[in-house]
C-alpha cells in the first residue's frame, strides 16, 4: 500500500510546484520533555488527501513522523485527527480544500483532543473503548430465544441504521464540549450506541433499562450541552446529539424522574402546552427547588419590568388541540402532567385576572358567530338568487 502511494506522490511531485506548510504536532513521551510543532512543506498538487500529505512527509521529509492508518477509505476509523482545530478522518479530507481554505497560512495537524498521545498523531483509544464497556452497550438477547432466528423488519433496521454505521473513530469524542469539562462523560459515540440497542427489538427490556441507567449514572449523559459539534464532525453522518436526546427521552419514559434533566423536559412539555411558552423564571424552582426571587430582585433593582408568567398566546385552545392530537398519533416518551397544567392555569388566571379557558371560549364563541353569520349569509344568498 505504502509503495503505491509513494509512486503517485513521486509522480505528482515537481520542484517548481507550489507548496503549503503543514504545522504538525510532535511528541514522543519516551524522549521529549514536552510536545512541539514541526513545519513541513508539502506540494499542493498531486496530493489527494491529508493522509497522502502525511505519507509525503514520512517518505520524503521525516521518517520519524507517526500516525495511524489502515483502510484509507473511511471504514476503519484509524486516522481521525485534528486539522485546524476540527476533528477529521485524514483519509477522507481532500487536501485541495484544505489548501484553498488555508489561503497561504500553515495547516495545523494535531492529535484528537482529550486522549493521551502515544506518539505524535497517534492517540490511545483505551478510554473511549472502556466507556463503551462500562455502559454495557451490547445485546442481551430477549427471552425466550426463538428456535430459528429473531425476525427484524426492514422498518426497524432503518430506525437504527445511522448509529449502526459508527466506525469508532472518536472524532466526536475529540470535539465534545461535555468531554472537555466532565471526565466522566462517556462520549457522543457511546450514547449513539446505547440508542441503537434501545431501538433493537432483539434486546432484553431489562437490559435496555440498565443501559439507559448506565448512560446517566456511569456515562453522565446529562452533561451534554447540545452544541451539535458531534453531528458536524461525524464522517459517517451519524447524529449523536439527537441520539442523546432520544436516550434522555427514554430515561423519562422509564420513569427516572429524579434527574434534573427529566424535570426540565417536563417543564417544557407542560408549560408549552399550558401557555405556548416555557417560563424561564419557574425553571429554577421546578428543576432544582431553588427560589428564583433573589435573581428576580436583581433585575427589579436594575429597573426591569418582570413578567412572572408568559402572556398566553391568542388561539391557545387550538394550539392545545394540536399538541394532544400529535401525542395521540405519536406516543411521546413523556406525557403532559395535567395536574401541573392546572396549577399553571390557575397562576395565569390570577395574574391576568382572566380565566384562561373562558378567554379562549370567548374566542370560540366569536368564531362560532362567524360560522353562523356566514351560514345565514349563504342561505339568504341562496334564496335571494332564486
Amino acid at each position, binding site marked *: 500500500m505504502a509503495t503505491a502511494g509513494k509512486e503517485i506522490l513521486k509522480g505528482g511531485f515537481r520542484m517548481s510546484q507550489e507548496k503549503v506548510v503543514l504545522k504538525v504536532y510532535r511528541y514522543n513521551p519516551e524522549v521529549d520533555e514536552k510536545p512541539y510543532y514541526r513545519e513541513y512543506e508539502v506540494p499542493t498538487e498531486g496530493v489527494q488527501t491529508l493522509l497522502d500529505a502525511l505519507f509525503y512527509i514520512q517518505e520524503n521529509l521525516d521518517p520519524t513522523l507517526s500516525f495511524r492508518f489502515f483502510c484509507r477509505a473511511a471504514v476503519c476509523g484509524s486516522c481521525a485527527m485534528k486539522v485546524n482545530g476540527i476533528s477529521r478522518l485524514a483519509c477522507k479530507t481532500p487536501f485541495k480544500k484544505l489548501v484553498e481554505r488555508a489561503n497561504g497560512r500553515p495547516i495545523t495537524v494535531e492529535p484528537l483532543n482529550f486522549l493521551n498521545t502515544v506518539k505524535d498523531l497517534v492517540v490511545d483509544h483505551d478510554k473511549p473503548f472502556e466507556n463503551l464497556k462500562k455502559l454495557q452497550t451490547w445485546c442481551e438477547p430477549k427471552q425466550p430465544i426463538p428456535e430459528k432466528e429473531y425476525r427484524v423488519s426492514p422498518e426497524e433496521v432503518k430506525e437504527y441504521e445511522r448509529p449502526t454505521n459508527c466506525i469508532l473513530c472518536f472524532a466526536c469524542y475529540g470535539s465534545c464540549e461535555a468531554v472537555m469539562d466532565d471526565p466522566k462523560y462517556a462520549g457522543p459515540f457511546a450514547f449513539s450506541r446505547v440508542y441503537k440497542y434501545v431501538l433493537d427489538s432483539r434486546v432484553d427490556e431489562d437490559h435496555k433499562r440498565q443501559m439507559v441507567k448506565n448512560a446517566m449514572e456511569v456515562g453522565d449523559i446529562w452533561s451534554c450541552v447540545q452544541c451539535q459539534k458531534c*453531528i458536524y464532525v461525524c464522517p459517517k453522518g451519524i447524529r449523536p446529539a439527537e441520539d442523546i436526546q432520544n436516550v434522555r427521552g427514554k430515561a423519562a419514559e422509564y420513569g427516572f424522574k429524579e434527574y434534573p434533566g427529566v424535570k426540565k423536559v417536563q417543564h*417544557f412539555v407542560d408549560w408549552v402546552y399550558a401557555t405556548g411558552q416555557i417560563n424561564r423564571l419557574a425553571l429554577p424552582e421546578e428543576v432544582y427547588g431553588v427560589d428564583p426571587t433573589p435573581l428576580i430582585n436583581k433585575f427589579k433593582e436594575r429597573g*426591569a419590568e418582570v413578567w412572572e408568567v408568559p402572556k398566553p398566546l391568542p388561539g391557545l385552545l387550538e394550539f392545545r388541540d394540536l399538541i394532544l392530537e400529535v401525542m395521540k398519533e405519536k406516543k411521546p416518551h413523556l406525557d403532559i402532567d395535567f395536574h401541573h397544567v392546572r396549577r399553571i392555569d390557575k397562576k395565569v388566571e390570577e395574574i391576568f385576572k382572566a380565566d384562561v379557558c373562558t378567554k379562549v371560549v370567548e374566542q370560540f364563541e366569536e368564531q362560532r358567530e362567524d360560522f353562523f353569520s356566514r351560514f345565514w349569509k349563504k342561505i339568504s344568498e341562496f334564496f335571494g338568487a332564486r
Partner: protein
Amino acid sequence: MKKIGFYQGCCFQGPDAHMFDTLKKVFSDLGVELKLLEKTTCCGGNTIDEANKYLVYSINARNIAIAEKEGLDLLVSCNTCYMVLAKTKHALDNDPRLRDEINKLLAEEGLEYKGTAKIWHLLPYLLEEVGIEKIKKKVKRPLSGWKIATYYGCHIKYPKEVAVVDSEDPKGLEELISALGGEPIKDYEGKDVCCGYHAYYTNKEVSLKKVVKAPQGAKKAGAEVLVTPCPLCFKAQDIYQDMAQADEQKVPSIYLPEILAYALGYDPKEAGLTYHIIPLSKISVNIPPAG
C-alpha cells in the same frame, strides 16, 4: 420599508420583555418593520425533542405556517430557535410524507406548511438584507475605543445543513462591530467553546465550567466586552457567568441588538444595557447611568 414576520420565541419574557422593544426600534430605524407573529409559540428549545421529536416538527411547522399565511418570511433572533426551526424546515422540505401528515394536523387551524417562507437568523439578515453601508450611515455614537470579542454561539454554526455562517471560520460580526466604530477581537482562546446555557438545567456543574471559558479567553486577548447574536449565550454569559466567576474576572456580554441600539444613539436604558446582571459600567468606556 421592508416588512418581515417576527418570531419571538421564549427570549422576551420574564425580565427580558424590554429586549423586544429595543429590537423593534433598531430594526425600524434600519428600515425594517417587524411584524410580531403573536400566535407563534416556543420552538421547544431543543428540549421537547427529548420527549417527542414529532411534536417539535408539528409546532414549528405551525410557527412557519403562521408566517406563510401572512405572506412573510420569518426573522428569528435566537440561535437555538433558529436551529430548531431550520431543522424542521429541512425535515419537512425533504420528506413529503412527513409534511403531508403534519399538514393534516395543521388544517384544523386553517394553516398549511408550504415551505415558501425563508427563515432568517438575525445576523445574516442584518448583513445581507439591511447591509453594512446602511448600518454605518445610521451610527450616531461610534464605539470608539471599545475592544469587543465576537462570540457566535453554536447553533448558527452547527449542524452543517442549517448553518448560516462558515462553521469553521464564522464571519460577519467583526464587520458589524467595525461598522459601529468598535474594535473587533476575533481570535481568542475559547471563542468556539459552548456557553453552557443548555446544560444549566441538566448538569449545572458542567454549565458553570463552560460559561467562563470564552470570557476568560476574551479578557486575555484584551477584550472588555463580548458581543453575541444569541440571546441565550448572552443570558448565560450574564447570569451564569456572574455565578461562576470572581468579580474582577467577569467580562460583560452584550446581545447584538443592544450594541446596535447604543451605537445608533439610544440611551443605555433604551438599548437595554442597564438591565444586565454583570454591569457594563466597569469597562473602560463608561456608560452613564440611566435616567
